[in-house]
Structures are given as C-alpha cells and as structure tokens.
C-alpha cells in the first residue's frame, strides 16, 4: 500500500491558495454528468452535498436518520473556532493552526491543519449569511467566548446549541439543493457496504430501513461523512445510532484506517446510574471553574455527601495538581477520577462517579451568581438525575466523546482507495491525537463547504464517464454479500440480545482501552474480543424479518462491525508505545503522571490495512514531518 499524502509543495502559508489555482477543474457543462454519493448528513455531509449540488454535480445523499437534520453534529454544544481576530487579542490563522497542532499533541498533519485554520474565517461568513443566529454583542457584532487550549477568544457560539444551529444552516442549504433537484436525499437508508470496481470506489450498497430493500447506487465518487466510532464503547456521548459500519466496510474493501486508538474522553459527564444505561450526557466543562472535585477519603464511605466532614474528603485534583487544581486538563482530570474510583472511593450507583461540589462557590458568590452562570446546566442535571445540585454535589464521571482516528486521507481528503473521499470526524487528518474544544464543528464544515468540493475535482477530472452501471458484476457480488450477511444475522436465533453483547464489548473496551491503557490490558482485549465476536455470531437473537423495519437487525449489523473494529483499535493502541493526546499508556508517563510522548519512534500516522477475515492487519506508517513547527512537550503548568 502506498500512502501518498500529496501535500502540495511550497511554503505552508501558500500551499492551499496555490494548490487551489492548480487543481483540475471540471467543465461546468460536464458537472451534470457526474454523480457523487455522500453518505451522512451531518455538518460535513450536508455541507458537502449542498455545495456539490450548487456546483452542478448530481448528488445522492444518504442518512440513517429519518431526516438529514438529525445527524449527531446537532448535539455539539460549545461552539466553533475561527481565526477572525474580532476580539483584537492577537489571533491569527497561524495561531489557530499552531494551537490545533499543539492541542493534537503533535500528531496531526501540518498542511491539513494549516488549511483548516485558513478557511475557518470563511465558515463564519457562510454560516452567518445562511442565518445561523450566532450570539451577538449589543452593538450587533458577533460575540466570542474562550475555550480550552487557547489563549485567545475565538469561539463563535449560539447559546449551548451551536452544533444544532450550524447543522440547521447546512441542512437548509441542502434542502435548497433538494428543491433545485441537484441533490436527491435518501433518509432512513443505511450504507452497508462499499463497491470497488477496478480499484476505484464506485458505489455503495444500502438497505432501505423502512422496506428492508437492499439496493446499489453507483457514482463517479463516494464521499463518506459518517462520523466517529465512540459507540464501540457502547456507552458514549454519541447518539445511539452512530456507528463505524460505513468506514469499517471501506476499510475491509481496502481503505486504510488511521490512528483508531486516538479517542477523546470528556471529564464532566453525568455518570452511569445502572446497567440499563443507554447514553451518557455531557455537561459543559465550564462547571469546573467553580466546582470542587472530591471523593471520600475512605473506601466504601456510604454517608451522604453532606454528612462527610471536610477532613474526610479528598479533593484529589487540588491535592495532586496544586497549581491547576480543579482546572487540570481533560485527560489528567479524567484519569484521576478513574484512579480514585478504581481504588473503590467512587460515589453514586456502581461507584463510578466523583463529586463536583459547588457549596464553596455558593457560599462565596451567592446562589444567584451560580444560578446565573450555570442555571441551564443545573437544570439539565436535575432533569436526568432528579438531584438538585445547588444543595447536593453533582456527580460526574468521564465519558467517551469524540474519536480523532478515522479513515486515512490525503491532502485531497481522498483515501488510498481512489474515488473514496472521507470528511469530518470520519477521517483522521486534522486533530492528531487530541481535538481542541470547538474544533470538530470547524473541521466538519471546512471539509464540507470549502475543501472537498474543490479537491474532489482533482479526482473527477481524470475519470470521465467511468461510472459503472449498478448491474455490473462487482455491484451484484457486493449486494449478494450484504444480503447473505443480513440473512445470517436473522437466522442465528440465539439467546442473547444485541444490546447485551454490545454492553459486554463496551465494558471490555472501556476497561482495557479506555482513558488509560496498558500493554497487558490491551493484549487481553485483543485476545478476548474474538470470543465475544464468536458469541455474537453463535448466540445473538435478531427477531423479525429483513423486509421490514427491524431495529434489532440494524443494531446487530452495526455491532458486528464494532466487534471487529474494537480489536483493530486495541491493536493500534498496543502498537503505540507512547502516551499522546487521547491515547494514554500507563507505562509511558512521567513521575507526575504526565503523558510521555515518544517523538523519536512514534511520530507517524498508523494506517492499518485489512488483510482478510481473521488475519492480522498490516500497519503502514506515514511519517509526520513538520516544516514549520517544532515538536514540544504539551505542558499545562
């Protein structure tokens, strides 16, 4: 496998602008002749489908939700970064670029990140013109807030619903193109496989989730905008439907999967309350500005928090990190919480939680101030837990939240499989080993609006009229495989529900490949996952039929892929003998518990190539070369 990132030559600042003027264009009259498939309708997918439609291509857009507007981008709360420097605080494209590279723990590709920072400002213009109601100052100009990992204020937001508003903007642009007839939308349609014809990605096989019909769609190029894979852990902040199937199917058809071990944990989520839990809910990290994190000093202290006197409390973040205290970075706070819970000092049901106590802040600032600052979060907390956090401490616990890894792509956002383009969270390119807050929305929209619509021309211009018909034998073969797999899932007729097996996988992944990993644990996971997979294929119960709405069948199909993908994730984590960003290996840390990166040996992108069922995948390495920045230790002191 050849991994050519196709980074344009020239100085970093002018790579993109120069490349833009060199990219091959498709004649406007010819654009009509091209069909492009976009899978996913989140920020990346909707933006790309709309923009490609505007350019004159014929676009088919697919999503598993009942409406493109429901993609999980909608749940992003905080905001979107852009190097506008509206606050006159010294922001610049370079600074945003550098913050992103540094935040990614020096594991992202320089040229891609620089381009991302470059187009960031345009995104804000575009979204504003679409009617996204960003927060404003009294003067009528756009407001900004600050976010972690940056010393400037460059985050644009729309209350706590920025993702929703940006997605509705992209969705409205998409709707306009649907109305214009350039985009055909296929809601409740799930991609189940990729079709590769003569080495090029030329179509997909989908299942209509209402009628159960399995059909093929051919195109000149395929764009995957299918999001991340946090749900391999079963419990995450992702929507229940988020899955790795599209990306993993592409991997099995020859696309390289890059850095699957880079996963991000968010420290302030509402903890699990029981076995039945289906979803973890994130609360803004800003809560840590005024809340103090603690657990009882003694194991198994069952007193209610108010009854535990000061001297029996362990404010472990303040104790361990006196200078940063409760504001220690995400990964540090998350791991510390895990440590105290592993010691048996966790609070709440199952002992997986720590207190976030506002009583000091309320005494110091008054109830009203706290209510003003965090009222909506306290309300959300109460809705879910039934507890009043003004009077009893909140319970929080870290949760899986975002995945930086994804399909490998070059500078054109095309994978090593010609014709297959991957954008947004589904690709690996921009966040390195860790993503900064408010950068996911930026990347999705940058890819969808301003990068892919140009770079896809580079591929299309060379492949005139090569679209095969859907009755091509390669399509037929894949369709048959998909039908066969569906039939098999329905015929196992075992004893266990899909969810119970997913729970088992999730638990193992969380314990062995969660926020802290070690070689032994990962080896154990790699050896145990095939057993769970076996159990699944022998003993899962998928009731109902294929030719109707069958949510269990959908879940089972997705889990089947997670069961293979989980193993790949663990293998990648095992290979990476260093701690960087979201990947923390217990063996590689400083005495203070800081991540210990190994730039000498591991400054490469791990790109995994599928070798066949039950074969070990092969690791390819794309070296990370920095022309502009110098690798440094990420310090929070």
């Amino acid at each position, binding site marked *: 496998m050849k991994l050519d990132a196709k980074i344009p030559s020239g100085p970093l600042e002018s790579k993109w602008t120069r490349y833009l003027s060199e990219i091959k264009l498709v004649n406007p009259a010819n654009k009509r002749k091209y069909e492009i498939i976009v899978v996913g309708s989140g920020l990346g997918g909707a933006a790309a489908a709309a923009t490609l439609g505007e350019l004159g291509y014929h676009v088919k857009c697919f999503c598993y939700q009942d409406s493109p507007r429901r993609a999980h981008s909608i749940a992003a709360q905080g905001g979107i970064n852009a190097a506008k420097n509206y606050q006159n605080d010294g922001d610049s494209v370079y600074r945003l670029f550098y913050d992103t590279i540094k935040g990614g723990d020096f594991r992202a590709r320089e040229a891609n990140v620089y381009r991302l920072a470059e187009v960031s400002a345009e995104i804000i213009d*575009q979204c504003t013109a679409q009617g996204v109601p960003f927060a*404003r100052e009294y003067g009528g100009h756009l407001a900004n807030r600050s976010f972690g990992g940056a010393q400037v204020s460059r985050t644009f937001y729309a209350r706590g619903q920025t993702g929703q508003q940006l997605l509705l903007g992209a969705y409205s642009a998409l709707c306009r193109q649907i109305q214009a007839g350039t985009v055909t939308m296929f809601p409740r349609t799930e991609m189940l496989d990729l079709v590769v014809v003569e080495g090029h990605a030329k179509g997909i096989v989908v299942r209509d989730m209402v009628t159960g019909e399995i059909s093929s769609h051919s195109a000149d190029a395929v764009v995957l905008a299918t999001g991340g894979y946090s749900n391999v852990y079963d419990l995450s902040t992702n929507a229940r439907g988020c899955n790795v199937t599209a990306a993993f199917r592409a991997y099995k058809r020859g696309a390289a999967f890059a850095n699957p071990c880079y996963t991000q944990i968010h420290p302030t989520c509402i903890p699990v309350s029981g076995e039945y839990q*289906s979803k973890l809910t994130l609360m803004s990290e800003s809560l840590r500005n005024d809340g103090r994190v603690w657990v009882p000093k003694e194991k198994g202290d069952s007193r209610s928090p108010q009854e535990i006197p000061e001297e029996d409390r362990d404010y472990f973040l303040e104790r361990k990190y006196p200078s940063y205290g409760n504001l220690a970075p995400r990964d540090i706070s998350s791991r510390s919480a895990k440590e105290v819970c592993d010691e048996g000092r966790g609070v709440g049901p199952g002992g997986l939680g720590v207190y976030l106590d506002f009583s000091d802040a309320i005494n110091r600032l008054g109830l009203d101030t706290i209510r003003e600052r965090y009222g909506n979060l306290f309300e959300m907390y109460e809705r*879910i837990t039934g507890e009043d956090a003004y009077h009893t401490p909140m319970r929080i616990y870290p949760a899986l939240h975002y995945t930086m890894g994804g399909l490998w792509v070059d500078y054109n956002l095309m994978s090593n499989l010609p014709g297959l383009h991957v954008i947004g969270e589904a690709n690996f390119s921009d966040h390195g080993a860790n993503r900064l807050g408010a950068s996911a929305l930026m990347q999705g929209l940058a890819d969808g609006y301003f990068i892919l619509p140009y770079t896809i021309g580079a591929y299309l211009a060379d492949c005139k009229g090569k679209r095969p018909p859907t009755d091509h034998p390669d399509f037929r073969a894949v369709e048959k495989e998909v039908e066969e797999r569906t039939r098999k899932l329905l015929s196992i007729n075992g004893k266990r529900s899909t969810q119970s097996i997913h729970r088992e996988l999730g638990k193992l992944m969380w314990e062995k490949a969660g926020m802290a990993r070690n070689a032994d644990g990962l080896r154990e996971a790699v050896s145990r996952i095939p057993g769970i997979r076996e159990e699944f294929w022998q003993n899962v119960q998928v009731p109902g039929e294929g030719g109707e709405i069958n949510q269990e069948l959908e879940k089972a199909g997705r889990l089947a892929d997670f069961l293979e993908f989980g193993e790949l994730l663990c293998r990648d984590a095992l290979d990476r003998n260093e701690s960087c960003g979201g990947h923390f290996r217990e063996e590689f840390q400083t005495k203070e518990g800081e991540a210990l990166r190994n730039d000498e040996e591991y400054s490469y992108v791990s790109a995994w190539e599928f070798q066949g069922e039950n074969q070990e995948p092969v690791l390819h390495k794309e070296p990370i070369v920095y022309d502009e920045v110098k690798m440094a230790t990420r310090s929070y002191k």
Partner: protein
Amino acid sequence: MDLKLRVWRQKDRNSSGKLVEYDARDIDPEMSFLEMLDVVNERLIDSGDEPIAFDHDCREGICGACSATINGIPHGPHRATTVCQLHMRHFQDGDTLTIEPFRARAFPVIRDLMVDRTAFDRIVEAGGYISVGTGSAPEANTLPIPKDQAERAMDAASCIGCGACVAACKNASAMLFVAAKSSHLNTLPQGKPEKERRVLSMVAAMDEAGFGNCTNQYECSAVCPKSISEDFIGQLNREYFVASIKQQFTTK
C-alpha cells in the same frame, strides 16, 4: 417500580394497529423513559417476541428523533422535556401508561411508535432557507444585527423538528413548526429579501402535506420540548397576510 404499559403495535404503514398490554416490572426510577422501553424490549427479545419499534437517536433532547405520546401528551407529562429525557421518577408505582405514536395524517405510522415525518422536510425544502451559495457570503460583521433580534431568531431556531406540536394539536396543525422555521429566518436581516416568498411557499407546502389548522389553543407551545412561543405563529399569520396581499399587486 411496576408499571402496566399499553403500547400501540402496528406492523407497517398499511396494517392496522392496536394497543397491546405489557407488564413492565422492576423498573428503576432512575431510568429514562426510553431506557425503560429498552428494558421491556430486551425482555421481549429474550422471550422470542418482536421488540417495540420507536424512533430515538441522540437521547439528549436535541436531535428530535424520539416521539411518543404518553397518556395523551406528546413527550409525556414533564414540560419542556423530550421523551428521551423524561425519567421514570415522574411516574408512580402501579401506573398504567398508554403509549401511542404521534398521530396525524401527515405523519403516517410506519411501525409501532415510529412515524414518517418527512412532511417537515418538504416544508423546509419549499423555502426554509436563505439562498446563499457557498462562497458568496460577505464578511460576517459587515451586517450588524441587534442583539435582541438575534436572540429572537435563536428562540425560533431552537426548534428540534420533533413534531410534538403537530401531535398535540387537536387539528394536527404544523403551524408552530412552520412559524418557528420561517420566523427564525424572517427575523434576521439576511432572511428579509426572501421573506414573502418564503412564507407563501412554506404555508403552501404545509397545506399540501395535509396538516390541519391552528385554533389558537397553544397546546403546541405547551408540549414543545424547547418551549417555542406561539408568538411566532402570530408572526407567521401577519407575514403571510402581508405577503398574500402584496403578491396580488406585484407583477411577476
């Protein structure tokens, strides 16, 4: 806690459905309503039965996928809360809960509690956008927008498109949805050039989809998980009136 559920079961769009009773035993009050259904479903699967189909996705009250009517109230008894964020502690041990799909001609039931809400997409496609192509936007700060205007637009824009307004309206009217969508854009200066065209075509699409009419009872606003105000319906009424009159006196 133990509950008695009466759940609407319907095989597909063309079948007729009926309420089927289930016992939901040992339900943890900490569960969300959908988690309770998950548990009931796992038990159904274990006993070889088909689970209850229901729409859901984000489970944090923002995607708008979940939809069920509980004892006659869309999204259940807790105000400003989607059914995915409704927790079982709001019910009593021994309660009987009748769980039905959202009902409207424009939202045909496709299975059990799942309905087809693509009519909403048709309405947005008809005019719920600002016609600005990618790349043609001016610098964002060239057009200052008064804060209160932006806030008002945001109030309307927070609609999650779940359809509870339609489900709660005795006439299955989509006015709150259409009003929220059109008012969001019409309130902002960017949306003004297409304001009239927008309301005319969105209302036409709404009528065509077979929704009923608003009788100003504001049940929609009361069940709305985002508490969107019926004031936007007033705004739509006003804007549509002006647009219709203007349309008569404008040559195309």
